[in-house]
């Protein structure tokens, strides 16, 4: 829970001057299912990356490097479109 600031402490004009600070907001807590990948089956087509609404597929060195669980909302699009079906949606246990 962030400490809410007084009118003297925030920039004027409603501006948000810290670009991309939504990254600090955890939308991963929305999930009821989480994606998990079978690394052996993955062909690194990166379709999951280009279809993710939440920019939550990590790509490193042209390879699918995992999920950003801080922000992944568990929508299941990645599992649905994966051409080799290497992503499973598992129930989130929390």
């Amino acid at each position, binding site marked *: 829970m962030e400490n809410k600031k007084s009118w003297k402490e925030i920039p004027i004009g409603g501006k948000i001057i810290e670009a991309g600070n939504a990254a600090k907001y955890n939308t991963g807590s929305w999930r009821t299912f989480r994606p998990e990948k079978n690394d052996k089956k993955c062909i690194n087509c990166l379709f999951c990356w280009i*279809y993710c609404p939440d920019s939550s597929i990590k790509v490193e060195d042209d390879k699918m490097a995992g999920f950003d669980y801080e922000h992944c909302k568990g929508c299941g699009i990645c599992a649905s479109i994966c051409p080799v079906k290497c992503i499973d949606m598992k129930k989130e246990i929390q």
Partner: protein
Amino acid sequence: MANIKELAKQPERLSGGHRLCAGCGASIVVRQVLMGTKDPVVVGSATGCLEVATTIYPYTAWKIPFIHNAFENVAATISGVETAYRALKKKGKIKKDIKFVAFGGDGGTYDIGLQSLSGALERGHNFVYVCYQNEAYMNTGVQRSGGTPKGASTTTAPSGKASYGKPQLRKDLTAIVAAHNIPYVAQGSASHWNDLVTKAEKAFKVEGPAFLNVISMCHRGWRFPQEDTIKINKLAVETGYWPLIEVENGIWKFTYKPKERKPVVEFLKPQGRFKHLFKEENKFVLEEIQKDIDENWARLERMCEASCKVA
């Protein structure tokens, strides 16, 4: 042609942590469109799902400059930003090449935003306008817009004992925009990412206004499971419901044609907003919808042929 591995090397411009619904089609559209240029971009957005969910004070998911003004005026607002850019560049106060893109939903584009869009196009500002077309005023609860298709049930034109949903066809905004004689107009779909990114690249490259009308999935308003976003999106294209076309300097062209167009009911059936059309008394609407799609496709083929001939 876009190379996905090259695209993945570009820095992400929209961060995670925004509060669009899980499985929202709008952010997929935005991410892909922004891959169309490596230059710095300033984004404007009309009021709507995109703006509201990505900029809840004090958080912003935009890692690039962003402005929201009001509902109907993103085109006018970006006109101002783009003009300021030209004014300051002319005076040597800005050295970089900067691109400008305005995002508006069908609400903020087909209806209330049509005037400011038309004005910006006529004036020839150098910007890209992207309509993320989810076929209703989704942010405020699925109210009908000028972009809602015939037969869809929305909260202000719902299906009922005396109605089969929206009786009117949706506007052909792509044709309206093309009539402004701007250098580049296209219809795209995030399901066909290569086609969309290529179109975005062209749009950002042209001198003058460019317009991308991109069908945008909304599993809440259209009523289908969230994981089917891309599956339903592909059907929109494969049935000819949303043709992938472009108009480059007045020449109309299909950028993708399915080998055989699937019957439109395959696209309509999985969606709750069309469920009522499958009742016996409404089946005639399904026939009308198929007929409308066939006629629209034929019209587009005529446009392609005619505009090629003149060229």
